[in-house]
Structures are given as C-alpha cells and as structure tokens.
C-alpha cells in the first residue's frame, strides 16, 4: 500500500473508531448463538454421515458391476465359433476364477462389516472400520478380474 492510501486508511479507521461503540450495538441474544451452535452441530453430523453413504453406494455399485461382468463372461456364448475359446487363457482359468472369487468375497466381507458398523452413527472415528481397507479389497478383486480378462 502506498503512503497516500495508508494515510487514507488511517484517517478512515480513526473516524470509524469514533462510531465503534454505537456500531457494535446490539449484540445477538444468547439464545440466538445457542440456536446457531445447535444447528451447526446437527449440520456437521449430517455432512459427516453423507460420506459413508456415498461409500456404501460405491461398494454396492462396484460389487454389482463385478458380479454382472462375471455373469457375462462365464455364461455360454450365444454364438460359439468352433475351436475359438471365449478368452485366450494362458493360465489355468479355474484357478484364476477361484482367486478372483476369493478376493471378491474378501471385499464383500469388509464392506458388510463396514456397513454393519453403521459408522455414521459413531462419534469416534477409531471405532469405524477403515473404509480404505474395503476399497483396497475391491480394487484387488477387480485386478484379479482384469487378470482374467487380460489372460
């Protein structure tokens, strides 16, 4: 700020200071602040609970998508070309599928535990199962699935 502006600011503040006592009146009633505090606490709890809900949606969608893909890929093809396998498998397809299925089970179990814990109702985050574990498990199951596709 240049010296002229600074001087103008000082002059304004000086004058504002003269009005300060009058400007500061009135103050909010005690019950106003109490009401605002209560509303803010309630809104904070609502916002916190909204996050696990989206996690729940993510988990449900992820599992549903993986299951749908599994159904599509394991179902017999509508048009079967002779001597052409559906998936060019280098490894044992049964073992890959079993791996993937086990990983999917793990992920499902973690999500179920997470949902049963009702984390949005708990106040201590330490009591809530870590959502990251469930997401990692789902990622792992999807990786297995990709292995099958890529195999």
């Amino acid at each position, binding site marked *: *700020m240049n010296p002229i502006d600074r001087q103008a600011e000082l002059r304004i503040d000086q004058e504002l200071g003269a009005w300060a*006592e009058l400007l500061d009146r009135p103050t909010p009633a005690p019950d*106003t602040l109490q009401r605002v505090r209560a509303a*803010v606490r309630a809104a904070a709890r609502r*916002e916190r609970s909204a996050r696990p809900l989206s996690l729940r949606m993510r988990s449900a969608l992820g599992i549903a998508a993986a299951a749908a893909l599994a159904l599509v890929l394991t179902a017999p093809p509508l048009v079967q070309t002779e001597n052409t396998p559906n998936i060019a498998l280098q490894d044992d397809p049964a073992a890959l599928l079993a791996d993937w299925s086990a990983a999917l089970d793990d992920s499902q179990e973690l999500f179920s535990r997470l949902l049963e814990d009702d984390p949005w109702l708990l106040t201590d985050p330490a009591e809530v199962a870590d959502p990251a574990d469930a997401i990692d498990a789902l990622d792992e199951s999807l990786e297995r699935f990709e292995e099958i596709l890529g195999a």
Partner: protein
Amino acid sequence: MLPAGLDATLQRARRRDPEALAALVDAYGRRVYGLLFRLTGSRDTADDLLQETFLRVVRTIESYEHDGRFESWLFRIAANLARDHARCGRRRGASRSLSRLDEESDVRGIELPACNTTQPGAELVHAEAGERLQRCLDRLPESDREIILLRHFAELPFREIAEMLGVPLGTALARAHRALERLRRDMGDDGET
C-alpha cells in the same frame, strides 16, 4: 475469540467436527451478527442470516484452503448472503422507501445489552444514537455501507475488501471516506431534526 489454535480448529472443522464448528460460532458469531444487523437493519433477518452463514461454512469448509484469511472467507459469505437477501427483497417488490424503512426497521425495537451504568438516562441516549446511526447507515448507497461495515466488523484490510467487491483499492478507500463523511453529516442533521 479463538486463541492461537485457529489452525487446529479449522483442521478439525474441515473434518466436520461439530465441536470445532461450534467453536467458530463462539469466536466469530458476534462480529458476523453485527455486520449482518447493520447491513440489513433487522434483528430477525440478522438472526436468520447468521445461522445460514454458519450452515454454509459447514457445507463448504472442505473447499476452504487455509491461507490465514479465514475471516475474509467467513465475512464474504455473510456479506454475500446479506446482499442476496436485499436483492430478493427488491425482486419481491418489498423494496421500501427510506422513510418507510425507518418506520419499519427493527432498530426501534432493539434489545440493548444489559448496561452496567447506574444512569438509565445515559443508556437511553445511547439507544437513540444507535437508532439514528442505523437510519443514517440505511441512507448510504449499499456498496459504501458494505465497505465501512466490512472494515469495522470483519477488520479486513482495505486491499481485501477491494478484492472482495471487485473494485480498485483507491475506489474502496474513496468510498469509505465518502461514506463516513456523509454519515457524519447525516448524524448531525438527524440529531437536529
């Protein structure tokens, strides 16, 4: 007022910790209320907008990047809400003439805080002066009023006020100077009538 722990409180508030957010109400509620009351001239409206200001803080604090300008961010929310409220009032055709505003303004019915003085007469004089000040503030152009109230209640540097209002620093200073000059003149006139 929040002690030096503003950073820690804001970190908790960003995680939507209810107690941290309530602490922000304790720390800033009075000043935000003062700004809203003087901008709207109505105790009821200031009550409502105070709550809405802090509810917006709850909803949007995740997006706030703490760079030491929390107050600027908070008071900007409050000032925007007051401006929106005034705009909606005008749109609804509820815009009142200045004389009518004077008649209807809640300032006539304001509850003043308990006074320690043993002279009730002094308190009455203060109350009357407060009403007069509000009438004079109401007569100022909205943008001028906003600048001096933001300076007083939000204690924002003029540079930030100018940024907030999208005007050059010199313009903000000139408007504040003009507003105070007019306030001083009107207060004198109003007192004589």
